[in-house]
């Protein structure tokens, strides 16, 4: 992950004419997202392989709270909308709106993380630890990896927001915001898959 956000900021790489007409940083980021698909694909496959093979409880249907997680999912979807509005604002040079929507995106991400924190601690109280059974191990590693991605995204968004506050973010850096958005939407899409596979199809 670290290198992903690192090269996304590689200064000036997109300033030159490129063979494909696509900004180099953006292309690198698409490749990175392709790579991440395999990462989450492997984790989701592991979850599916071990589905229903836990030797002891708690089992998924006893513990997963679909209404609560639906709210988290809705919250994350709305953060994608805010991200779109943030990028549009930065691209047209409306930095007041840009700042607002960057902050809203980050806050919605934080709400999601708070929900995950509450969910994890609730599960632990109910007796589902990381090592309790295969469900616990696969569930925490899969959703935890996703949560780590959201955390990186929130830090990234807040970094951009601080840059905007200091007046260092404008339409000239719209590509940076666009790449942040790519990452954010990707993390959102992964959550929709996880929500479907883990929560809805039990």
């Amino acid at each position: 992950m670290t290198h992903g956000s690192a090269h996304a900021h590689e200064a000036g790489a997109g300033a030159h004419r490129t063979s494909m007409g696509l900004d180099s940083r953006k292309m690198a980021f698409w490749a990175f997202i392709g790579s991440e698909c395999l990462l989450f694909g492997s984790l989701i496959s592991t979850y599916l392989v071990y589905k229903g093979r836990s030797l002891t409880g708690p089992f998924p249907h006893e513990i997963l709270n679909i209404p609560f997680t639906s709210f988290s999912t809705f919250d994350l979807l709305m953060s994608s909308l805010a991200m779109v509005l943030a990028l549009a604002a930065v691209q047209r040079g409306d930095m007041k709106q840009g700042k607002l929507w960057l902050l809203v995106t980050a806050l919605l991400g934080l709400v999601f993380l708070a929900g995950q924190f509450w969910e994890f601690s609730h599960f632990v109280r109910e007796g589902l630890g990381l090592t309790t059974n295969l469900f616990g191990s696969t569930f925490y590693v899969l959703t935890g990896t996703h949560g780590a991605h959201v955390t990186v995204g929130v830090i990234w968004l807040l970094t951009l927001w601080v840059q905007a506050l200091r007046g260092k973010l404008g339409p000239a850096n719209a590509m940076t915001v666009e790449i942040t958005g790519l990452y954010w939407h990707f993390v959102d899409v992964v959550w929709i898959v996880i929500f479907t596979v883990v929560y809805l199809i039990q």
Partner: protein
Amino acid sequence: MKTWLTTTDHKRIGLLYFWTAFGFFLIGGLEALIIRAQLARPDGGLGVSAETFNQLFTMHGTTMVFLALMPLSAAFFNFMIPLQIGARDVAFPRLNAFSYWVFLLGGLFLNASFIAGPLFGADRLSVAPDAGWFGYENLTSRQFSPGPNVDFWLLGLQILGIASLAAGFNFIVTILNMRAPGMRMLRLPPFTWMTLITQFLVITAFPVITVALVLLMFDRFFGTHFFVPQGGGDPILWQHLFWMFGHPEVYILILPAMGIVSEVLPTFSKKPLFGYTVVVYSGVVIAFLGWSVWSHHMFSSGLGPIADSVFAGTTMLIAIPTGVKIFNWIGTLWGGQIRFTTSLLFAVGFIAMFIIGGLSGVSHASAPSDLQQTDTYYVVAHIHYVLFGGTILGLFAGMYYWWPKMTGRLLSESLGKVHFWLTMIGMNLAFFPMHFSGLLGMPRRIYTYSSELGVTGFNQASTIGAFLIGLATLVFVWNLLRTRWQPISAPHNPWGGATLEWAIPSPPPVYNFTVIPTVESRMPLWQTERHAPMRPLPERPPAPIHVPGGSWWPLITATGLPVMAIGALSHVIPVVLAGAAVVIVGIYRWAYEPFEM
């Protein structure tokens, strides 16, 4: 010194990759020689203990795959790709430096296990990984490998994975986006094409092993049961995840060598590559099929007849694009004005040896015969024919071909020929008898064998062959060092090559091209039916060329990773956090450092 630590020049990074990887190649070779010396005599051999032997073959495999062959290919990616596509550097020069430093530090971390025993209270000096280069469960579980050995392995490989992934993104973008005007995709030199395909395999295969290693790490450090049967886990899942990475990895190792051979053969036959487009598409097909064959490593794990048949079928299919390439290479040589330089000899040696390795590969593709071969020396023979006879001979062809471009100095052709013939005799003497010792029932990875098994003679032949390879390598090292002591300067284009790297001085100036060339044909320096050779570039740049300065942040960011690994290894959380802090600060400083390209 400082300029090397902060360099972002792809040529310098290429040289750093070369010397580092070559150093690891010598270490891995030394491990192989100790293995062979031990096996020269039956019934206890030289007296190497089973524990030490386990460490030696594990580190030999891991070192050769991750620290020697992949980064030796990377040395050529770094040095040659920007030159072949007519660019001044890669797309992300600092990310490129970061890849190198992560690779170096990951390799040092892995090898530090040889002397780290006392730090972990072990009663021996070496706590090197000892569970084989593919780390099968449940040998790697905490129950059966309680020491830090496997921890070194899984943390080291995770660090190295970051280096490979970062380089993968970088070279994909470089090749797609940094091409000179007129350098259309089907005008790319075949080495560049094979590199592009390899990098797509890297960015898709490495996440899978990352997940496998993370799950293993959770099992070992936090007590989960992903691969532990007592908790309902399945050790076979490790095999699936590992080989889903591991088989594309085989093509990650061989495709660059195929690319090198596809450059060398046309140059020394004075003929265009026969069926260029088909060679390119075969590479793409090999990569696609490479994703659909992983379970042929697992026939003996009892997958059932349907899975066995499907994977046997897909595996045999891969022989088709590979065979297509071999015929194209032979077609390139056919009727050409062949010059038997050392580079060409190695390229032809590659074809011959790779055919043998390919044929034994087809014999494993059939599940019933594979069941007789699994875990015997027959498999060891196969892997060495493809990875030594294939990849290493291909890389040597590349070293003789590109050394003058990389250093400005010619290697000795007469020493080169000694090197070639010693290598060929040595490798066949070492690896061919392994087919027989394997079929006679000698298991791989065993520190000694009984004289009653009847494989002593074959083992002695293998040992003599291995030491001949060692001798050949010394000749090569002598040849490399001689270019420093008794330099013979190389002209721009010592071999009459057709691609852009030969249009500029040897070694190239820091900006590569005085003027970015405009490309009109696939072989810009050659007279073709429709195109005259490209006009020589001006001696001096007509306008000032901006060359990016160096940066400390790639190196500093990279140092955080082994620090995190050391913290995890010794279970000291503050050290992990300190390493993470270095990485985070490094990324921020890197991102906001002024760096004009």
